[in-house]
């Protein structure tokens, strides 16, 4: 059964130095509040797994929590580069970052294999590309029935999955809708799961076939209204595209980045609405 915990307590308990951590959410429902708490607690040597690192991993990498990244597309969507990710790979700042790179199709198969309890995922992919030359974990396997050569990717089994969802009930059952990405796969593939939510309600009342993560596959549910900002939570608030533009400017220099993180993330946050806090700061910026 999931426990309803304050976010800081849940991160302390569930995320440990050296863990493989998958903060998922495909453009939608990116767990920013939880990522910021991981930064505040100065976790170290994390392997960060995520299809699209987005601003949250840019921030976490720039603040030095990671020693390795597993990903498939590392840009600022619709804007350009992730400058902190690039600085880590190109110039080893703030430290060197090991890279394990896949395609989206490869990553979803690896997550599905993790969730399915299989040793590897299988796909018709990577044929003719240079990715297997730089990622030794992309291998090929021959179909025993047709003889076709297919790609094999080892299962992703994170120590902890971190996701944001729209709502949970007081028992810790979680309802998630809209662009649901690979959150369900990531949670089911992981040893532990931390879920932040927009609201905790008495009755979830999901329609049949809705994407529900039952309380017993979730370790902790944390109330974090606005916790996906500047990404979005369908039904609650829109993606703040202007923030993604602003981040391009903030993240270009190490000094401006560190200054921004110090003021906006490291400073004690208190029980504020995450989105309101950042929206206000953005207007000042």
């Amino acid at each position, binding site marked *: 059964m999931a426990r309803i915990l304050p976010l800081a307590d849940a991160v302390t308990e569930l995320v440990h130095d050296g863990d493989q951590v998958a903060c998922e959410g495909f453009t939608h429902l990116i767990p920013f509040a939880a990522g910021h708490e991981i930064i505040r607690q100065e976790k170290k040597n994390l392997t960060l797994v995520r299809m699209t690192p987005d601003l949250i991993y840019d921030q976490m990498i720039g603040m030095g929590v990671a020693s390795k990244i597993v990903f498939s597309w590392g840009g600022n969507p619709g804007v350009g580069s992730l400058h902190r990710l690039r600085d880590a790979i190109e110039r080893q700042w703030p430290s060197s970052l090991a890279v394990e790179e896949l395609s989206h199709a490869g990553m979803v198969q690896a997550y599905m294999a993790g969730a399915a309890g299989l040793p590897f995922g299988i796909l018709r*992919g990577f044929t003719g590309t240079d990715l297997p030359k730089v990622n030794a974990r992309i291998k090929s396997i021959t179909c025993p029935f047709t003889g076709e050569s297919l790609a094999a990717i080892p299962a992703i089994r994170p120590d902890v999955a971190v996701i944001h969802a729209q709502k949970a009930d007081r028992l810790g059952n979680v309802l998630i809708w809209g662009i649901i990405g690979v959150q369900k796969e990531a949670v089911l593939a992981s040893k532990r799961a931390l879920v932040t939510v927009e609201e905790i309600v008495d009755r979830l009342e999901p329609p049949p076939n809705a994407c529900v993560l039952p309380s017993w596959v979730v370790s902790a549910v944390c109330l974090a209204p606005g916790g996906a900002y500047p990404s979005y939570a369908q039904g609650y608030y829109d993606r703040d595209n202007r923030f993604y533009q602003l981040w391009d400017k903030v993240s270009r220099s190490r000094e401006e980045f560190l200054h921004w993180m110090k003021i906006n993330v490291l400073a004690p946050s208190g029980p504020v609405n995450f989105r309101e806090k950042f929206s206000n700061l953005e207007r000042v910026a």
Partner: protein
Amino acid sequence: MDHSADEIMTVSAARMLRNGAVCFVGIGLPSKAANLARLTHAPDLVLIYESGPIGAKPSVLPLSIGDGELCTTADTTVSTAEIFTFWLQGGKIDVGFLGAAQIDRFANINTTVIGDYDRPTVRLPGAGGAPEIAGSAGEVFIVLRQTQKTFVDRLDFVTSVGHGEGGDYRKRIGLLGGGPAAVITDLGILRPHPTSKELTLTNIHPGVAIDQVRAMTGWSLSFSSNLEITPAPTSEELAVLRDLEQRTATAHGVTAV
């Protein structure tokens, strides 16, 4: 009506899409062209985005691949795992529509690194959905601006395969999709030669000089013997495109690429 180089690129790319086709759309230029097609000659074009929306009909261009409007206007939204596994790999996609950072003479694409992989000069975003879109879609259209930096003799990294080393390369290595059928740029349209599969300039946009295309290509470019001039965008195409861009700018506070 006068048009810009970017506008004729987008209009030419949109014209490639037949009404009713099922199109797996990359973000940016491909998404803009695909939505222009949907709003002009191809109202029944089915747009699929890798974030999960199937049959998306956005009124403004998405800034990200997973904007909420893609989901709320779609016929259905499935998980990212399902999109790649059932819909793309399962062979349901007629057209893959991609952008690129760099392309070579066989329409292979690099979106990974400039320079050495382990010590890159420029780290690009990486593969995303492109390798399997390029491999599995029925055919592939690629849209990008043509410069010496983008049209290169040799790619530093092959992220997504076009026609590989040319000829029957795709068949030999077992790719099921047909591969790139056209590359649409701000200067013209290139198509693979029927047998060698080397990109050949088949259309040149009005007002563009052949020497200009040659100068913006990093290899010795072949020209079709019956090189055609691209028909200029119609006033309707331009009006719909500009309207779409204006709505997008208002919605996002920026001009989506």
